[in-house]
């Protein structure tokens, strides 16, 4: 009588679906200003007056449409940061990579982005940073290269 053999066979695959995510009219205006003028704009809720960056079409606290665009500075304060030491194919940089939550002057919350041009040992929360724009800008979040400390 023959017998069944045992071995752990696996099937390798990768889900590859192409996507194009529409930014929407509101977000597109933000990216156009970033790309063409190196300007950071926020949007203000008419009721609670909160300024959102990235912009939102609707204030999610008040649940009403936002309307008023606000030109913001390219400076801000580092609220939190992390130094990532592992490589990851979706990070467009080699480790160590520094992520920060940057509260841009005039905004009510922070923007998630990279922190660069810095000696890692000098990172601390509360430090002042300024946006460094990418030389080649394509109308996406990487049009800001990173935020760098203000000397």
């Amino acid at each position, binding site marked *: 009588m023959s017998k069944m053999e045992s071995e752990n066979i696996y099937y390798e695959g990768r889900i590859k679906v192409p996507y194009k995510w529409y930014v929407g009219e509101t977000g597109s205006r933000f990216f156009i200003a970033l790309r063409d003028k190196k300007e950071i704009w926020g949007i203000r809720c008419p009721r609670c007056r909160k300024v959102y960056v990235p912009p939102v079409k609707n204030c999610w606290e008040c649940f009403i449409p936002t309307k008023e665009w606000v030109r913001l500075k390219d400076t801000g304060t580092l609220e*939190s940061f992390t130094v*990532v030491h592992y490589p990851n194919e979706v990070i467009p940089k080699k480790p160590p990579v520094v992520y920060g*939550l940057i*509260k841009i002057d005039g905004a009510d919350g922070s923007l*998630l982005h990279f922190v660069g041009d810095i000696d890692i040992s000098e990172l601390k*929360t509360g430090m002042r940073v300024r946006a460094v724009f990418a030389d080649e800008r394509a109308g996406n*979040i990487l049009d800001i290269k990173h935020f760098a400390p203000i000397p």
Partner: protein
Amino acid sequence: MEKIAIVGVGQTTYEKSKEDTFAEIVFEAATLALSDAGGDIGDIDNVVTVSNDFWDGRTISSMAVMDAAGSWDKDISTVEGDGIFGALYGMMRSLSGSFNTTLVVAHVKGSEGKMNLITNAMFDPIYQRGLGIDATSSAALQARCYMEASGAIEEDFALVSVKNHRNAINNPYSQLPMEITVEDVMKSKKIAEPLKLLDCSPISDGAAAIILTNESGLKRFKKDPVWIRGVGHCSDSYTLGYRDLANPRALKDAAYKAYKMAGIKDPMKELDAVELYDAYSYMEPLWYEGLGLAPEGKGPDLIKSGATNMNSDLPVNPSGGVISAHPVMVAGLARLIEAVLQIRSEADKRQVKGAKTALAHGINGPCGQAHGVFIVGI
């Protein structure tokens, strides 16, 4: 409102890599829960499965486990989120009058996907994803926000890792039982500062199942019921920079509802055991605050006090917690199962003596955006 009981629980061991398929581990957990309850699949009126298409690498991931969950010719639905939310939906279905008994089963095989890619996909594709952020790097940002707000230091977080990995030694289902020191944690490899390797949970494979019933369905099973005394769930906002990462207000809200339903006024005194979702070490003291076990900013003091150790005032994560075994989607349901075992006095070496009221907690989304809380008791 009618009362709902948990009459059966089953879980596979949680391992780095299991050979069995999704369907096979679901069948194992479901079968264990049925035999634990002293019933069979014919006693089940409807089924809720829990899975995630990204983790499973499959659209309509629930399709892979319909037969294994015993749902043939039964009503069935699928929650995509932590298993604690599957348990919540199961409870609602048993309360609705349409069904008496509900089987809830969750599964994941973390070994078959890539965590960093899968969790990168939970970030907004327009504003955040292109930066390559993932579950661990975002958690690191939260850990530092919490350090700023509470004055905690990394050594405080390390205490969680030491306590929970030690507790895991008593749990045969756990993946990483370890006797380690604060120094070991501090010296472990830097992952995403301030998080080091031993501050982070592993990625696990496993499945877990529970059987819920209303009072009418109770007689179908031999097992004594453990009653659900309170539940609550709530989600905070999504955008990381606009959510106060150091203030788990959604957990406060969920816990408040659960305590109110259970008639609990002083959780630190009235709870006997807590199983919470410590995907990263810092989460435990932060969730203490959300659960009202410690005042705002005082979570680190509670871990330092030793009051949450085994054989102390309120043991937290007697099972070793999520930091010792992290089957995503399953982990919250595993917390609930551990809480049930505590109430039944069936937790063997990890038993908290005389436990009468226990809390289980699950989370969803980046940095614990949403929370689910169960209070179970006799």
